[in-house]
Structures are given as structure tokens and as C-alpha cells.
């Protein structure tokens, strides 16, 4: 069967102040390593080179008469000189100008787009966008990217999902003056954002959600500083008035947006993700550069020893050329070790991203060690019932050990998303971190994590005849144990850091979290608790004293303290299991006896020392009855 899986992939690199400019070849090579995420429908690059020489430049795609284009442009711009940069069916022209004002770009674009005959797609003093129809290496060749250097690079390969793919207008990056954005997402608010921009004077759009993001960013920067702008777009603004008047500038739906921006003094690399981080984004840093990528592999191919971390959901990353890291996208960046091994059976470095299982199956032995695993996907999908003892060194790609029945797997490194989906037996031990959706619908077997886990760990975990366990030594992001109906999750970090919405929709099983967590983080609780209390007080369903007691508590803590008649009203908020119950307490004898051998085994396998924690208090979360 011949088929070509595809979709969106992105990469951005910002050099540090004292480092050398970044080679285009490095960028195009790295992007090309994830070409399976894109298609021949479009790729593009943007490079920024900070300078003080005030040379203004625009680039225009145009498929009409050259003289006519010059006529249109000269009405709005002071043209110094121009040349044809790319001679495709839709030509790319590059104009050097005296100066640029934002309104003229919009006006010219309105004229050019009337018959879909052209579009200014790059403008600024330090910015150059190069984009076209083709795979990353095709477009790199078209524009000679490999011989360029830049302070900041953005690169993108595209799978069109809601716009045409046969002309260059729709390729990324999208740009406004000294701003370039690349995007992997599908903005559900796109229509609302576009209406709001129209109200504010924008007239013509090539018609993608990605383009709209660049206009919003520019529009907001007219009024706000960079951080406020990012917060408005990401719906993180507290001030009610600011929230209100910018209500049409908020992005929704799954997205990872990467923005390059020159404010005249400094270059910024910005990464922004939606509130549950539905699209991949990996952050990285080494001695020379900062990185944002779709897959860890893109960064590790550039520098095997770069440190990488995942973005916290509902968060943002900012670094600048002059000031370095401004916001890391996580409270605390943790280092994960790079493991290596001398004795191995398979070197994965030359094996295709989806073919590692074939090599494993070729060896006629039960114990197998693989080194240089880097982004390999679906490892174990063909060996699900083969009883292997697998030792993997490196970083595994998505869908590791899905449907595993009896293999014992040790990963010395990080695992990406969707690890151990629908696993029904065996053991998977990960010495690094695991990505989002670890152990979905796990119904038997064990998963041990030495580091942290991402969003939605253990969702839909279930047990019928068997007892599955997930043990996490580190921290977790949002929706831990969502929809869980059986089995046990144990979190041992005990530092109070945790994601939100724990155990939302739980109808069975148990979650043990070492130490005390904020009860606000449990389940989905209504945000207007004070109104509820006022209404209950008004009807004398609670008295003044109780009202005062409850006023400062979280909704989940109020439930148990309400009289029965009042509960009749509040329980309408949790009858579909939106909120589980929780208690902060010592384990009882049955729980202790159950967990003791599990943690003992975890300690011995993962080289940790957690067993004594069982004598201390845990936050225990289970279905509300």
C-alpha cells in the first residue's frame, strides 16, 4: 500500500546575543526531517536580520502585468528599485522602498486581491519571507535558503486543511510589517476574529486563520505592549475592560503559533499555545540558540545535547536576541539526561521513523537493546504480543507501545504523545518525561515514569478483571485521570505543582497524589460560587454563619457542608461526574497494602526512593457518589 501521511510542522531558531548567525541549511535540513508532517502544498521560511540602516523592503506575489504592478505600488510607495525574485507562475517581486506605512500595505493589498491577482506577503526592515508551493527542500532550493544566514528563522511545512494549496499565497509564514508568523492549528474563532478585524478596517483577506493571527498581533501592538498583546490573544487577561474591548481578538481552537517580531530594537521569538495544548510544541535551548519545534527530533538533529522541555498548556514562550529568555513556557525547566549505551543490537539512527519494529522482528532474540532512537513512531505496534524485553535509548516518537500486551519496555529518554494507548498488559518504564495522553484506556499492566507527564495522563483508564497502575515520579499537566473508570494512578512528586481539572468525569478507579493539592484543581467547578451562595442565603437554604464560612472556600469544599435542601440545587452542577470527590489523608490499611508492593517495585525499577512516602498523607481522588 502506497500512501503519504502528511500535515503541519514548524521550526524556529533564535540565536543568542554572542552567537553566530544561523545557517539556512541547518534550518531547511531540520525542517525536512519532518517532511511527513507537511505536503507538497506549501513550505516557507522567514529570516530576520536586525539592522539599523532603515532599508525598507516588501515582497509581492503577482500573476499579472509587471507594469501594472509597478503602477499600483508607486501610488503608495517610494520605490527605489525592484527585481523578480522567483519566476514561478505566480511571480515573486522584491521592492526596496524609501519608507513603509502600515495603512499603505493594507490599501495596496486590497487592490491587488480584488481579482486575486497578487498580495504583499513580506514587509519590514529586517524581515524576509520566502514561501512557495512544494516540500521544504524544494522551496529552500527555489530561494537559495541554504546559503543564507539569519539572527532568527521561522520555517514551516504545510498540509492545507481549510484553504486551497495550489498557489503560494496560502503558504506560511504570514507577515505584516516586521512580523512573521507560522502556525499549526485550526482556529475555531477565525470567523469571529475576521469580523472584528473588518470592523477595525481590514478589508481583504487571502482567507486563512493563520493570516488573521498576524493581523491581530499587529493590531494589538498599536495599543499594547508585547506581553499584553500575547495575553489578549491567549485569553489570559484579567482586566475586564481590556478583556471586553478586545473580545474579538482572542484565539480559540487547537493552535501552536510561533511569531518572529522586530520591535525596532530587538528581535523576539514567541511561542503561544491554546489552553489545553492540542498541537505539539517543544521548546529547546543550547549554548548558541533557542528553539521551538513540532518534534523533539528537529532540535536534537541540530544539537544532540540541546536541552528540551514541553510548553505548559495555556502558556507562552518569549526569548529575545538581546535579553535572552523572557518567559520559558514552564515555571521550572528541568534537565533530562541524555542516555547512551555501548552495547546494542540495533542502531536506529538510519532507520525510517515508522520501521523500527521491522528491525526488532528480524532479530531472533527476546532481549533487545536499541540505541539512537529519535522520534521513531509506533514502536511496538507490530510486537504487541511478542513478550520482548526491549531497552530503548533515546527519545521515542508518538504512539510508543500502543496496544501492548506483554512486552517489558524500558525507555532511557523521553516519550512523546499517545504512549501506551489501549495497553492491556506488560510493563513500560520511562526514565525521562512522557508527553500528552499517556496510558489512555490502559486496562492492564504497569506504566512507570521517572520524570513528568503531560496533559491527560491515564484518561479512560479502566479495569474489569485486572488492575492497571500508572506511577509518576514527577509532575503532571491538566486533566489527569479524566473519564477514568478503573485502575490506579499514583503521583509521588509531592511538591504541590499540578495541572488542573484532575479526575474530571471520573466514574471509577483511584488517583493518589502525594501531599496536598489545591482543591480548585479537582474536576470542573463552576466559577460563580458567590452568586450561588447569595441565592441560597436569600432563600434561607443556608444561614448567615454558614454563608460566611463558605464564602472563601472552593466549590468542591462547599458541597459537603451544605444542608440537604441546598444540595438539591448545587448538585445540578456535578450529576454528569464533572467533579470527583477528594480527601487529604493517610492511606488506610487496605490502600497501604495495595500500594506497598507497587511502589517497592517502582523504586527498584526506577532507582528512586519513595516507599517511605506511603506513611505520609496523600490527596486521594475518586468518583463522587
Amino acid at each position, binding site marked *: 500500500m502506497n500512501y503519504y*501521511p502528511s500535515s503541519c510542522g514548524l521550526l524556529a531558531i533564535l540565536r543568542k546575543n554572542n552567537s553566530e548567525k544561523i545557517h539556512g541549511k541547518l534550518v531547511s535540513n531540520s525542517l525536512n526531517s519532518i517532511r511527513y508532517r507537511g505536503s507538497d502544498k506549501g513550505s516557507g521560511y522567514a529570516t530576520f536580520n536586525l539592522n539599523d540602516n532603515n532599508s525598507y523592503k516588501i515582497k509581492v506575489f503577482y500573476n499579472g502585468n509587471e507594469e501594472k504592478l509597478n503602477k499600483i505600488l508607486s501610488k503608495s510607495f517610494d520605490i527605489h528599485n525592484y527585481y523578480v525574485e522567483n519566476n514561478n507562475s505566480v511571480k515573486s517581486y522584491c521592492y526596496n522602498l524609501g519608507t513603509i506605512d502600515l495603512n499603505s500595505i493594507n490599501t495596496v493589498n486590497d487592490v491587488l486581491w480584488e481579482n486575486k491577482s497578487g498580495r504583499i506577503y513580506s514587509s519590514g526592515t529586517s524581515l524576509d519571507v520566502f514561501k512557495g508551493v512544494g516540500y521544504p527542500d524544494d522551496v529552500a532550493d527555489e530561494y537559495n535558503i541554504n546559503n543564507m544566514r539569519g539572527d532568527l528563522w521561522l520555517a514551516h511545512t504545510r498540509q492545507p*486543511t481549510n484553504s486551497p494549496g495550489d498557489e503560494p499565497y496560502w503558504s506560511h509564514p504570514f507577515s505584516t510589517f516586521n512580523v512573521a508568523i507560522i502556525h499549526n492549528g485550526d482556529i475555531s474563532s477565525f470567523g469571529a476574529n475576521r469580523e472584528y478585524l473588518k470592523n477595525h478596517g481590514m478589508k481583504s483577506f487571502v482567507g486563512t486563520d493563520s493570516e488573521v493571527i498576524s493581523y491581530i498581533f499587529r493590531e494589538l501592538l498599536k495599543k499594547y505592549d508585547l506581553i499584553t498583546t500575547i495575553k489578549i490573544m491567549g485569553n489570559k487577561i484579567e482586566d475586564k475592560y481590556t478583556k471586553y474591548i478586545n473580545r*474579538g481578538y482572542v484565539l480559540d481552537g487547537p493552535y501552536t503559533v510561533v511569531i518572529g517580531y522586530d520591535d525596532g530594537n530587538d528581535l523576539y521569538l514567541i511561542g503561544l499555545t491554546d489552553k489545553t495544548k492540542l498541537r505539539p510544541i517543544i521548546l529547546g535551548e543550547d549554548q548558541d540558540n533557542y528553539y521551538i519545534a513540532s518534534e523533539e527530533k528537529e532540535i536534537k538533529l541540530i544539537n544532540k545535547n540541546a536541552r528540551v522541555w514541553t510548553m505548559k498548556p495555556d502558556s507562552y514562550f518569549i526569548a529575545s536576541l538581546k535579553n535572552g529568555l523572557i518567559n520559558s513556557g514552564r515555571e521550572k525547566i528541568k534537565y533530562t539526561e541524555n542516555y547512551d549505551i555501548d552495547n546494542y543490537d540495533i542502531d536506529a539512527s538510519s532507520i525510517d521513523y515508522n520501521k523500527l519494529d521491522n528491525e526488532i522482528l528480524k532479530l531472533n532474540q527476546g532481549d533487545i537493546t536499541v540505541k539512537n532512537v529519535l522520534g521513531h513512531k509506533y514502536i511496538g505496534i507490530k510486537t504487541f504480543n511478542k513478550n520482548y524485553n526491549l531497552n530503548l535509548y533515546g527519545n521515542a516518537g508518538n504512539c510508543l507501545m500502543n496496544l501492548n500486551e506483554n512486552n517489558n519496555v524500558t525507555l532511557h529518554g523521553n516519550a512523546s504523545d499517545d504512549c501506551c494507548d489501549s495497553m492491556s498488559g506488560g510493563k513500560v518504564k520511562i526514565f525521562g518525561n512522557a508527553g500528552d495522553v499517556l496510558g489512555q484506556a490502559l486496562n492492564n499492566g504497569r506504566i512507570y515514569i521517572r520524570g513528568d507527564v503531560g496533559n491527560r495522563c491515564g484518561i479512560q483508564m*479502566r479495569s474489569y478483571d485486572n488492575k492497571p497502575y500508572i506511577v509518576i515520579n514527577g509532575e503532571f499537566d491538566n486533566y489527569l485521570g479524566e*473519564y477514568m473508570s478503573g485502575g490506579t494512578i499514583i503521583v509521588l512528586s509531592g511538591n504541590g505543582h499540578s495541572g488542573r481539572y484532575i479526575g474530571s*468525569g471520573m466514574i471509577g478507579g483511584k488517583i493518589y497524589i502525594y501531599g496536598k493539592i489545591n482543591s480548585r484543581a479537582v474536576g470542573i467547578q463552576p466559577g460563580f460560587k458567590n452568586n450561588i451562595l447569595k441565592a441560597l442565603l436569600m432563600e434561607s437554604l443556608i444561614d448567615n454563619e454558614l454563608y460566611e464560612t463558605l464564602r472563601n472556600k472552593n466549590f468542591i469544599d462547599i458541597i459537603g457542608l451544605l444542608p440537604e435542601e441546598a444540595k438539591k440545587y448545587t448538585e445540578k452542577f456535578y450529576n454528569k461526574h464533572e467533579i470527583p470527590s477528594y480527601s487529604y489523608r493517610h492511606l488506610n490499611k487496605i490502600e497501604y497494602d495495595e500500594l506497598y508492593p507497587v511502589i517497592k517495585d517502582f523504586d527498584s525499577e526506577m532507582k528512586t526512593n519513595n516507599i517511605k512516602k506511603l506513611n505520609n498523607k496523600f490527596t486521594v481522588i475518586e468518583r463522587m457518589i
Partner: protein
Amino acid sequence: MDNIVNNFINIPLQKEPDFWSFDKINHIRELTVTGNPYRIFVKNNNSLRILDNINFKTYNDNITLNTHGNTGSDLADMEMSVPLYLGDMSYGALSGNPNLAIAKSAEITKTMSGTGEGGLYRDIASYKRIFIQWASARFGVTAETLNAGSGIVIKIGQGAKPGIGGHLPANKVTDNISGARKIPGNIDAISPAPHHDIYSIEDLSQRIDALKLLTDKPVFVKVAATNYVPYIVTGIARSGADGVIIDGHGAGTGATPVVIRDNLGIPVELAVASSHNILVKENLRKNFKIIAGGRISNSTDAAKLYALGADFVSLGTSVLIAMGCVMVRKCNLGYCPAALTNKTDNKKLFEIDFGVNNIINFIKGFRIELENILDHLNLKNITELTGNKDLLIADNLSKNTLNVLGVDYENIKNTGYSLENFIPDKKYLNGLINKGEPPITSMGSNAPPDVIGPSRIVDFLRLDGAQVTRPSIDPYREDISLNTNLSGGKISLSLPVIFDVSDSSDKIKEGISWASLFMNTVVIDNKIKNKYKNITLRKNNNYYKYKNYIYTYDYSNKNASGYVIDDNNLLKIAGLNKNLKNRRENHDILLYVHEFRNTGDIAKYIALGADTVILPSKIFEYGISNMADLNEKALNFIIAIKKELSLLCGAMGISSMQNSLTGNVELLRSINLDNSISKILNLSEAGSE
């Protein structure tokens, strides 16, 4: 042996319009009893359904048993006697024996059946002509079951509930089901709305890649027909799938919230026509199958869908009818009179042989009807029919609809939309008020404009359901914000609904005001009661006053915090938005809904540009049966509306309603609405690229 069901029961009188009319049920029963053809080129002249307004240019209703046409084709490398897929009804939704009857019949008739998402009942795995589902809840998913059939279906969505997950009500989660799905018994089994491994086309292609490595079998992707269906289908084709199952609005289901079923999704005929077109254009149509489902009642419907671009049609409801279903729409409750969808521990048992014989006869009759149709169309093979739009002619459809279909036509519908009198749905309102929950129902929609006649512009509109390119958001168990800020941020509501209680009695006022306080929203009244002074906007003729907050019809008033538009003056909203320009950011638009059908209206008005809606308390009064417990009833009403809005937002992939839905016409599609109106409101037709 009283408890064995092996005979048809009488069809009850239908009191309300139902797509599955007596005639349609009767046609299926005729085939089932005789195994012979019954009627071809069936015309439904008064029907509002788009497919019924498309006919073959040829008309010849003669039927013979001596046919020449060949209905054979192939699917998943297997020979098919007729391009029928018996679609995706789960063990749990059906009671077990009907599942077995379907799998067995597919084997005998050389067709294909889909197992749905509930795991496999008894020895269904011994039948080869089955497609196994990879669905969001992973019920019954193991490497072994995935390998059991001839192919795999990744179920992203279904026509009866785009954007939300499977739902098996608690009373149907019996011990058997609990075991098959590995979940606790007697509690609702609600599958996650999205696949948490598939948030994008690239994730989908990864999952396809992985499933193919595991099974080496063809993989199909099932989606509900929604706004972006042509692009979604090309994405699916590019992602390596072997075909798509497009499930249209009106398709059946075992359980779905009314508000989702009736307001989301588009007709399959539009989705198939545009998907076929774009696949051909992008050179992706070869070796890629389109299976179309939703309201296929007879061979004529099927033939038209083939001609519009389908390779196969999926039959669900009509297979149930062949097995004795009489469309009482009680599947979600578990006491089916025909023993098809009853609880699995029910004493009433469906006889497998009865089901098998019926389906075999039904398919045989269906096939011979198709052969007759082929003969009259002068076609040798059914495969020549696929995408052969030249054989079709439409009449009395809107221009935009015709553009999507790409078929010849006689007259364009341009006589203005003919409206029926509006009647509120008392049963639905009563459900909200008594339970405080979104009403759950079963089987396909009869909503306007395709079955029940439309009475308002919003009856012609459907909302989007997120499919593949973005995930829907689980409305029950994830955080969806309906918070609405008005008046420069001075008023914050927990949902975009304000009640006008000025015309009601004190008792009603009190109930709604209390509930509004509880739910953190406000009311409009002509007097301000002290205890509700913080949540009351005062009404004074056409002026509503609240602190500095004035509503007025005078749009030039720059001091107004907002403007009110009446639903019967809906077209004004477009002009208002245009005229306000950048002043829009400082003003609210409130839409006064006099005619309220269901919560879908609220979402549609907001998508058309309103910040919030005003509902008169009369609507609440219409839905209550007595004056007892008004506080609780009013609270139920508001909380149920809130939950329904969460369902709608989640299904559309929206996590913040005011920010993302206001003025977002991308999330709306019109169904056969006059072009002049679509143009004013800036709406695209369902299925358009």
C-alpha cells in the same frame, strides 16, 4: 415462548411529521416480506429534503425481475454484490442478537457491516464482512479485535451528533455491556467527544499509519457531514485512508441530545456532491471510496447519492426497519417494542433468524430495484453511476444549493422563503424545566428546514461540528466558558442569556430572578426589586436602563452601551455590524428572541453577530405545567440552557463562547436558503468550498 420477537408489529399512527413516514416504512416491509422489488424512481413531491428535489432525468417506474444491470463492486479488497454498507450500530445500542443478525446477513448477501464502538457480541468475530471501529472510548479495542474484520473504521463523528461522543444511557449499561466495555455498570457511558490521539489531520495520518502497520487492513474514516466537509475529506484522502464514511444530518442514533441532533450537521447529498468534486479536482478520487449515510430510505435515494458521487451507501435505520423497527424513538430508554434496542438483560429477545431472513430479503429487493434503475438509465454497471451527475435534474432549489450540487436544474427557488407558523416545542421546554438537563432522544432528526417546515431564518441554518482538523471539546467533562462581558466589562454573565420578566406575574418574576442570581446572569424588568437590584436592568418603553447602561433602538446614539434587535427583524444585524465599524468594540448587540425553538437558536443568533440574547419569560411560562417550585424550575431552565450551550460550543470546538462565536458566520451554513438572504447575512451554503 412469548418473549421471542419474530414478527412485525403494527406501525403506530404518526402524530408529527417524520422523515420515516408510513410509506417509507411500508416500502421496506414490502421488500422484506417478498424479497422482490417494489417501487423505483420514487418521487416525494412535497418533501423539503434537498435529495427529494433532485430526480433522474429518466423516469420509468416499470419493474421486472428480468434485469441486466450489474450492481457488483468491491470494498476492502472484497467482492460486493451491491454497494451497501450496514452501518455502525454498536452492541449496547442494539441488544446483541440484532448485531449478530446484521453481521450474518452481510456475510450471506455479500455486503459489508460495521460493528460500531461497543466491542463484539458473541461470535460476531467469526464473520469476515465486518469493519471494526477505533472509536474515542476504545470500547472493546484490542489488537485481536482490530484484526478480526476486513477493515477498520476510525470513528471521528456521526451525523446524529457531530462533535460529541457516543452515549449509552445508564439503564442500558447492564452487566453484559459492563463486561464488554470494561466499565462500571448502571452509569452513563459517554465516550469522549474527541479522539484524544487525533487532534489534527497529521494525528489522523499517524493513527492510520499505526493501524495499517498493526493489521495490514484498509482503514476508513467516519465523519459527520459538517461545514468544512470538502476540505476534511481531502485531508482524509491525503492522510492515507482508503475511504471516508460521510454521515449526514438526520442519520439515526441510539441516544443523542436533541439540541445537537437538530442544529448541527448538513445534508449528506450536499456533502457527497462537494466532496466528490474536490477529490476529483485534487486528483485524489482514484482508489478512494466514499460511503454516504443518513436518511437513505430506498434504492432511489441510493441511486441519486451514487450519481452525486458516492461509491457506497450506508444503511442503518432502514436495516432496523427491515428487522421490525416502527420508529417509536425510544432506543435511549431501553424498552424497544421490537426488541432491537432494548436492554441486553431484557427478557424480550429478538430472534436472529427472523432478522437474517428479513435483511436478506430486503437487500435482495433493494438490489433488484437498483438493477431496474440501471436498466432504465442504460447503464451496465453500478460503478458507472458514481459521480454521473449528468443523469440528474434538480428543481426548486436555491442557487447556492445548486452550485454545491453541480447538477442541471429547471427552476431556481427565488420566491422568498415560505414560512410556516411558528409553534414552540412544549415537550422540549418541559424537558429542560423539569430535569435541568439537555433532553436526550434517539433516531434521526426531523428538524427544519428539511422535514418540518421552516418558520424563521434561523431554521435554515446549521452550526458546525468539529471533525478531524480540530477536535471537539468534551462538553460534560472539560472547561468551556460561556462567560459574557457586556457594557464595557461592567456586566459579566455566566451565559449569554438575559430574561425579560416584565410581562410576567410576580411569582414567575421571583423564580426567574432568583435563578438568574444563582446562575450569575441578569433580568430585565420595568420595576426594580430591592433584593434583585444588582441583577436587574430597568425597562422603560423602548429603553432599558441600568446604571450607565442604556439599550436603545437608535443606533446613532454613541452613549448607548448596546443595541437591541428583534428576531423578526434579523436582517438588520448585518447592517448594524457594518455601520458600527470600529465603534463595535464599545457596544453590545442584544437579540430579542420572541420565537424560541431550542437553545440552538441562541448559538445561531450569536454566530450572526449578537453578544447575547434576551428571552421573554413567556417562553418559560409556556413550558411549565404548574406553578409549584418555580425557583427550581427556573434554575433548571437556565442551567439546562447553559449545558446545551456547552454542548453546542464543545461540538464546534469552541472553548470561549463570546470571544469565538460572536459574528462567526464561518460556523454557520445555510440549507437551501434564498440567495438574497444568505448574501445579506454573509452565509455560505452547506457543502460549499
